[in-house]
């Protein structure tokens, strides 16, 4: 293990020596933007990226074959914009698509992008050794045929509405000559995985974990030079420190401004407020199984009446007001309202403590001494596992008191993120405050709530399983008619809501603190950073750090 690592260290040293072309900023381009993000990237090697910071870096440094449109349509290729593929051609039977690589596209080390890079990337994403979280999404791609150096033909196992989305969007194209040299099982500890080389409009410069990650504009990029010169990411886990940084101008963007203090941004002369809703939603998952005896039903949540009662016991609207003031967005069900298949006519069971108590009575939970309900000598007591996120913790605390009022005793178990992930993966919890990012595609819904998503590599961590839902989703995803798809999807969503496997609390709503000198480009619902290369800083507003250009460092 040691010797192989020193070998890759040598490789990193060699790549680090490749020169960067000095070029100065002009009226049109220039500027350094400092992003104070909540967390540092865990990984910036595309197949193993799992966090938002990592995705942000990936989306600047790498390209896909085609980019999803602003409307986030996932069916067919409507709205998709060319990226590395300057064009594509569907086979008549739709079982394959031929992508023509943009001949101008170059990797950041100067080598041209080729069709075999596409094949390499797809194989890498599918390789189980990499443990890619998207591996299961690309199973429908059968193989890649390199027709010529600039034409890659992707073959599919079956014709599905979202096959183009799967192929063009889910797979990040990576240079074979850089990553292919390293055996998959060594990628984890390889320095190459930490110094990415891609084809995006920004190129990677350096990463000092926990401190800063730096990207600069790729001046010769085939899609045009980024308008900014440089992006610096500084992890700022302390939200109060982040707020201070943005208000003093030490940072240009904070991705999760303290919601209680959002008013400060409205009055600041330095920073402004940008509201951004994404595909995320927060729910309180109720484990259907007993965490101690894995396959037995959960002694409390195994009963639908109890789950529904608990859902009705919490005043979601008031909690939303408490946490987000007037700005919050109430969840409608197991989806974020921003996704294309969302149905905002759906609603979880209403807040009704009387009904909730009656339901609990009917489920056999009788009020016992000290006001805690009992059934067969067992108290109605469970714990909610929650990460240190201030809003989620606040929700857990609010619910704790509301559950108490209907006779349920709740412990709030605050754990660090690592523990939360571990317990979520091991199903070691009663209830758990989880963030749930809706896939823009309806097929993702099937992965997240369908029986097929259950399993160690699946996304249905809740292990929700309902045959009706599965059948409805099968019908929805098989249909090419949007109206029919939506009808089936809505019914499937209603099925989940009726089963109350979780309490659907709120759609994630983020306040970005942004320096006033920055002119942003359109932000997409799933990723605010997606057009970062088109953000700019007007010449008259540039400050010292915007003017340094690419002049070599001291």
């Amino acid at each position: 293990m040691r010797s192989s690592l020193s070998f890759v260290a040598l490789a990193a040293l060699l790549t680090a020596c490749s020169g960067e072309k000095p070029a100065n900023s002009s009226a049109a381009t220039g500027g350094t933007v400092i992003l104070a993000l909540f967390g540092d990237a865990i990984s910036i090697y595309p197949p193993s990226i799992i966090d938002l910071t990592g995705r942000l870096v990936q989306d600047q440094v790498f390209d896909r074959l085609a980019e999803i449109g602003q409307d986030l349509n996932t069916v067919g290729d409507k709205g998709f914009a060319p990226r590395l593929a300057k064009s594509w051609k569907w086979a008549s039977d739709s079982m394959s698509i031929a992508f023509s690589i943009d001949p101008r596209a170059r990797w950041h080390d100067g080598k041209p992008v080729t069709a075999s890079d596409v094949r390499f990337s797809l194989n890498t994403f599918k390789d189980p050794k990499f443990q890619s979280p998207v591996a299961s999404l690309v199973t429908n791609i059968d193989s890649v045929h390199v027709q010529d150096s600039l034409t890659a033909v992707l073959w599919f196992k079956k014709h599905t509405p979202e096959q183009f989305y799967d192929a063009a969007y889910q797979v990040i194209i990576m240079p074979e000559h850089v990553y292919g040299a390293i055996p998959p099982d060594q990628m984890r500890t390889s320095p190459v995985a930490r110094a990415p080389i891609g084809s995006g409009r920004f190129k990677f410069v350096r990463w000092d974990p926990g401190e800063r990650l730096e990207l600069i504009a790729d001046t010769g990029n085939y899609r045009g030079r980024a308008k900014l010169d440089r992006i610096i990411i500084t992890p700022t886990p302390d939200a109060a420190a982040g707020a201070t940084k943005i208000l003093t101008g030490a940072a240009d963007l904070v991705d999760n401004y303290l919601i209680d203090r959002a008013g400060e941004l409205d009055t600041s002369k330095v920073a402004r407020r940008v509201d951004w809703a994404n595909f995320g939603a927060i729910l309180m998952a109720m484990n259907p199984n007993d965490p101690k005896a894995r396959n037995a039903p959960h002694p409390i949540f195994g009963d639908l009446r109890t789950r529904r009662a608990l859902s009705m016991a919490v005043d979601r609207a008031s909690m939303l007001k408490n946490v987000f003031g007037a700005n919050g967005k109430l969840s409608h069900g197991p989806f974020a309202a921003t996704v294309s298949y969302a149905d905002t006519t759906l609603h979880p069971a209403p807040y009704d403590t009387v009904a909730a108590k009656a339901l609990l009575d009917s489920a056999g939970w009788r009020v016992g001494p000290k006001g805690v309900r009992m059934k067969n000598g067992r108290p109605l007591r469970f714990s909610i596992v929650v990460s240190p996120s201030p809003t989620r913790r606040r929700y857990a605390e609010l619910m704790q008191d509301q559950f108490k009022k209907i006779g349920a005793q709740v412990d709030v178990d605050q754990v660090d993120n690592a523990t939360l992930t571990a317990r979520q993966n091991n199903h070691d919890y009663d209830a758990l405050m989880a963030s749930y990012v809706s896939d823009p595609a309806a097929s993702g819904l099937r992965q997240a709530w369908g029986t097929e998503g259950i399993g160690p590599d699946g996304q249905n961590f809740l292990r929700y399983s309902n045959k009706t839902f599965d059948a409805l989703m099968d019908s929805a995803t098989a249909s090419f008619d949007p109206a029919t798809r939506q009808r089936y999807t809505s019914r499937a969503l209603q099925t989940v809501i009726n089963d109350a496997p979780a309490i659907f609390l709120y759609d994630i709503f983020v306040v970005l603190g942004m320096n006033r000198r920055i002119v942003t480009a359109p932000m997409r619902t799933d990723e605010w950073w997606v057009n970062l290369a088109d953000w700019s800083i007007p010449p008259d507003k540039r400050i010292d750090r915007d003017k340094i250009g690419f002049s070599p460092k001291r």
Partner: protein
Amino acid sequence: MRRRLAARLGQSIVVTFIVATISFFAIRAAPGDPFSYSAKPLSQSLREQLRRESGYDRPMAEQYLRYLRKIARGDLGYSFNKGEYVTTALAQALPRTLLLAGIALVLSFVIGIALGVTQATRAGWFDRMTSTVILIFYSVPDFWGAMIMLTIFASWWRLFPPGDIVTPVMHDYMPAWKAFADRVWHLILPVASLTLLSLAGIARYQRAAMLDVLPSDFIRTARAKGVSERGLVWRHAFRNALTPMVTILGLTLPAFLGGLVFIERVFTWPGIGSLAAEAIEGRDYDLVTGTVIVGAILVVFGNLLADLLHAAIDPRVRE
């Protein structure tokens, strides 16, 4: 003297190994291993593979021996969360911590000692007032004190930057003198917070030590020789009161490093303290033991240094 030094050195190494042992077992007393808590989604089979590779499937005794062997070689393991060797991460963080802690330590001792001596020799309102202020600083939680400093001097009154070691980006493009000034500018708030919070304890000890020494016979002798008050305090009493202070220096080091965890956290200073907090949160086992061992080495060798200083000051312990 040389033999004593050798003995103390040997003792320090033994203590370091004991610290390594303590952290080894303390961490293994917690449920799971690094791979059951990894933030990365790992499949069961990969987890097993990693466990095998890192030897977490072996009996505890064997793991312990392997671990000791590694430590003796100076290999503190690999951080999976940071993706680098623990020694690399520590080598990066340690100079920053030493810079911050070193300046603050020297300042808090110099100011604390000066204050303590002045208090001890100036009974009355000055002593009472400073004692009260010092006691208040001593009774304030470290992180609270640091946060107040941050709020006042970085948020309200924007005199100093709200964290980081240097101005991000711009630092690299500054001329040498400006880069130096930038470094100092970033150091002021964390150093001031750390100094204020630790000098309280030192001033208290110094005051007590001076009050202990001042009534001594040899001070009276010196006075009878015609030595001035200043000579009495700063030459005769001070040298003697310094002896217990050197012991205090060694003993306050752990507390000082503990305070550093909070200060580094509040001022986003990426030193050993931040590294430790990060490692603990991420259950980065090797990194946790690594930071604890390095912290202990700092303490142990700080004590050794204190011993040498003690001998330099007090001829009675020199033989």
